[in-house]
């Protein structure tokens, strides 16, 4: 079944499913509670048998909803993609049901989303951090986490005692070096520091 047909069928069956703005593949917003049923239907009734990616979005501190989980699903017979997104109802403790029962491959994707955003996947068999070390106290891809990081203890106590070092806030030296649309000609210029007045010696104004 092609992606637009699948989207129509899902919208007819789940009244909570709404169209999601998209630039490429058809996309749906669904309530978090309906997520496993919608994805199961996509997989078993509409032939979207391959889970390509699970990722998260942090819209901003104070935004409602703050966290969204996005699933990219592909049909290996129709060669078409569908994107399903679900808003986490609670910004303080974001949680959605796991889909590891449908696709075992969702396991590490969901661990990464948990590691980076702190989104918990209810029913996940082994929800540990996957990139940062166990015991790391922050969620690095959240909007309130600075790019340079925050000073943190390293995991190995013996090495810390020997080297007397820890994770530091990285010296940004004028960065982050990004190219923003409208500020410079993106095809010709290199990425520039947004605010070049501050370095590790002179702290960022307002920091």
């Amino acid at each position: 079944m092609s992606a637009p047909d699948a989207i129509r069928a899902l919208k007819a069956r789940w009244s909570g499913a709404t169209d999601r703005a998209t630039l490429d593949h058809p996309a749906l917003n669904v309530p978090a509670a309906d997520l496993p049923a919608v994805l199961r239907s996509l997989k078993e009734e509409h032939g979207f048998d391959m889970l390509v990616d699970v990722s998260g979005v942090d819209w901003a501190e104070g935004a409602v909803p703050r966290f969204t989980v996005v699933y990219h699903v592909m049909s290996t017979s129709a060669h078409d993609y569908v994107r399903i997104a679900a808003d986490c109802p609670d910004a303080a403790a974001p949680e959605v049901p796991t889909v590891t029962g449908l696709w075992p491959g969702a396991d590490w994707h969901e661990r990464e989303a948990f590691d980076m955003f702190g989104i918990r996947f209810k029913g996940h068999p082994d929800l540990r951090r996957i990139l940062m070390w166990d015991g790391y106290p922050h969620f690095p891809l959240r909007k309130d986490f600075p790019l340079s990081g925050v000073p943190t203890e390293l995991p190995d106590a013996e090495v810390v005692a020997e080297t007397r070092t820890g994770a530091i806030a990285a010296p940004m030296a004028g960065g982050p070096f990004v190219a923003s649309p409208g500020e410079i000609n993106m095809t010709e210029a290199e990425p520039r520091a947004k605010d070049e007045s501050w370095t590790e010696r002179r702290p960022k104004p307002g920091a």
Partner: protein
Amino acid sequence: MVSANTELTYNSKIEGEVIVSRADAVINWIRSNSMWPMPMGLACCAIELMAVAASRFDIARFGAEVMRFSPKQSDVMIVSGTVTYKMSAAVRRIYDQMADPKWVIAMGACASTGGMYRSYAVLQGVDRILPVDVYVSGCPPRPEALLDALIRLQEKVKREPSAGKLLSA
């Protein structure tokens, strides 16, 4: 009349099979010409490290071709690549397992300073956890640059007061 001296080198008939030298010179000569690397290949610099060991650049010319993947058999740790905070404890523990005397080469921008990774996840220079002897610039460095670092490390080793250290140890 002065005859030309043709005895350019050691002559056992004259010297009586005895060489007089300094203990430092002998020990450092042995150490510096047989430095077995511990290849700490963590990122793309490790590809250049492999090129250094391969036929075109041939690190064997400097006596450092024996890449040992056991820290107990190696003399110089070549940290080639990005050291994340998660990996840093393992790097330090492997260094701790190397037998003295031991040296460290920080190969490339990431190992030296964190490089372009001004990030929450990357150790900002391996010298925060290890005593580095030689830093190599580049991203990644050319193989010649690593050979140059090895030669500089050999020169550094040749200046060390090895005998005194051994006696006082």
